[in-house]
């Protein structure tokens, strides 16, 4: 089953012609952005120098830090009256990355989500529970509009209240669920405790954090679903960039909308098919934010062409990051963001540790703060206030709930070199 068979199965010659045409359009669209006018001038290139797809290597990369530097609208290529929606991702030093969408962008995005869901065998007869965060996070609205585009019944259940989520699955006869894989396991466990069998569920769409083949087996057996891996990033609209087909062997990335390169993250050199490296994407149809050669930081490889489903070349499932970004409850977090939030708090000082654990399938963050001499007034309530201030600072900065433990002096590890104050103790998902 296809949503858009012609485009999804476009063969190499036709695809390259389409990509080249769209690449040129994207580069010209990027010229509306001062950052790119300057970048191209400094690099001595212009969109006119790009005649073939391989010429893209003449262009410089765009990094996440560049986007942050453009806060708020430095990477918006259209007038604000053409922007119909804004999403943001949390920033490493307080300022988020802003992603703008034109009406056409939202249409393009919904189309990609629709392709993915139809590829997974989902259609208008399905009842779809979208159990991810709505709001600024792209996963909620992205899937919501794509699912409505197909015409299925959409339940915007968002996150939280697991008992109610389970009741809805049972009472509404939900057939498809979208959530993070860790929440799915938590849901399965809660359903088992409630004695809910979730018989109607047949398909699970799992994304926003990396997950393993072991996790797939567990999800499929406990929820009674076929599990599909979903990949995306806000800078490229959100989820929907790449998705598994029923072969469950790699993800189809939509080549008509994204020009894909795999590079050696150290040298920036292009890697061959089958070699693992950093995924670099140049969007081909993005109007409001046409970024060029974006370094995603995600590690994958291009797979051999020729999937049985007839669609284009796949990328392998993401196996890691080139940087120290972590995914906590589906939220992308850099250790520096956590440190920044804590160092700015009077009463915390340099002596703290942050531990990320997985408890009952859910990510839990614990912050241990050593009590400083200046902080201890002798009063219990002052310490309790410090605890809630620390939790509040993390919640405000990252939107993550955390527990805060106060420790006696000298109990935390001391660092001679670069301090490693954020420790991820979760195993592989």
């Amino acid at each position, binding site marked *: 089953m296809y949503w858009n068979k012609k485009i999804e199965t476009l063969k190499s010659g036709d695809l390259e012609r389409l990509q080249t045409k769209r690449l040129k359009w994207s580069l010209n669209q990027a010229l509306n952005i001062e950052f790119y006018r300057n970048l191209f001038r400094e690099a001595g290139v212009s969109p006119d120098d790009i005649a073939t797809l391989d010429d893209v290597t003449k262009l410089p990369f765009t990094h996440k830090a560049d986007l942050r530097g453009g806060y708020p609208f430095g990477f918006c290529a259209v007038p604000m009256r053409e922007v119909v929606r804004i999403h943001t991702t949390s920033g490493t030093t307080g300022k988020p990355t802003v992603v703008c969408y034109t009406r056409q962008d939202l249409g393009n995005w919904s189309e990609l989500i629709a392709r993915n869901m139809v590829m997974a065998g989902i259609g208008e007869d399905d009842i779809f529970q979208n159990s991810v965060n709505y709001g600024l996070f792209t996963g909620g609205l992205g899937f919501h509009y794509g699912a409505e585009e197909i015409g299925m019944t959409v339940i915007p259940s968002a996150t939280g209240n697991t008992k109610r989520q389970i009741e809805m699955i049972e009472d509404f006869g939900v057939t498809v669920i979208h959530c993070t894989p860790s929440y799915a396991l938590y849901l399965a466990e809660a359903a088992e405790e409630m004695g809910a069998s979730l018989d109607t569920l047949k398909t699970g769409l799992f994304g926003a954090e990396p997950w393993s083949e072991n996790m797939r087996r567990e999800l499929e057996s406990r929820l009674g679903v076929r599990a599909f891996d979903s990949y995306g990033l806000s800078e490229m609209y959100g989820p929907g960039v790449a998705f598994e087909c029923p072969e469950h062997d790699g993800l189809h990335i939509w080549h008509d909308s994204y020009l894909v390169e795999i590079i050696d993250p150290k040298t920036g050199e292009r890697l061959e098919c089958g070699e693992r490296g950093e995924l670099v994407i140049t969007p081909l149809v993005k109007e409001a934010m046409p970024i060029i050669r974006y370094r995603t930081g995600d590690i994958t490889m291009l797979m051999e062409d020729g999937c049985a489903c007839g669609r284009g070349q796949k990328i392998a499932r993401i196996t890691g990051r080139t940087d120290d970004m972590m995914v906590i409850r589906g939220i992308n977090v850099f250790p520096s963001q956590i440190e920044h939030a804590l160092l700015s708090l009077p009463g915390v000082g340099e002596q703290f540790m942050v531990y990320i654990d997985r408890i009952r399938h859910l990510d839990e963050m614990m912050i241990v703060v050593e*009590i*400083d*001499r200046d902080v*201890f*007034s*002798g*009063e*219990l309530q002052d*310490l*309790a206030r410090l*605890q809630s201030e620390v939790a509040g600072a993390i919640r405000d900065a990252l939107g993550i709930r955390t527990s805060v*433990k*106060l*420790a*006696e*002096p*000298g*109990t935390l590890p001391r660092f001679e070199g670069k301090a490693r104050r954020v420790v991820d103790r979760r195993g592989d998902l």
Partner: protein
Amino acid sequence: MEDAYIIKQISVFSENRPGRLAAIAGALKDGDVNIFAFSIAEADGFGVVRALVDAPEKAHRILTDQGFRVSYTEVIGVKMRDEPGGLYEIATVLGDAGINIEYAYAYSGRDAAVLILRVDHVRDAIKEILSRGGDLLEASAFT
């Protein structure tokens, strides 16, 4: 003159896990510091150990040297009649005067029951108690 009745309590931050009280008490024992009264207040994962000792400065130094976070807190000690109504009398005096009790603990001394009080306005409390005929312990009684 109220100052004579202000007693220096030591307050020690402690994680809530086995052996911490023993570590504090052991340090005071090794320093030959006597404890008259003490209490533990607990919160989420930690506590504050409060103690009246015969040598607050020495106790502070010993515990700080051992890595504890210690601070002084001003409290008062009120002698209570060791019979029904003893606590009521004192609580009424402070309540009537609009003085709030943050926390309290008690011990039974040689000649009376003693109520240790941490209040929001310590000098006002001393004045009120003395003017209503109450009996306060002087700080020097502990040293």
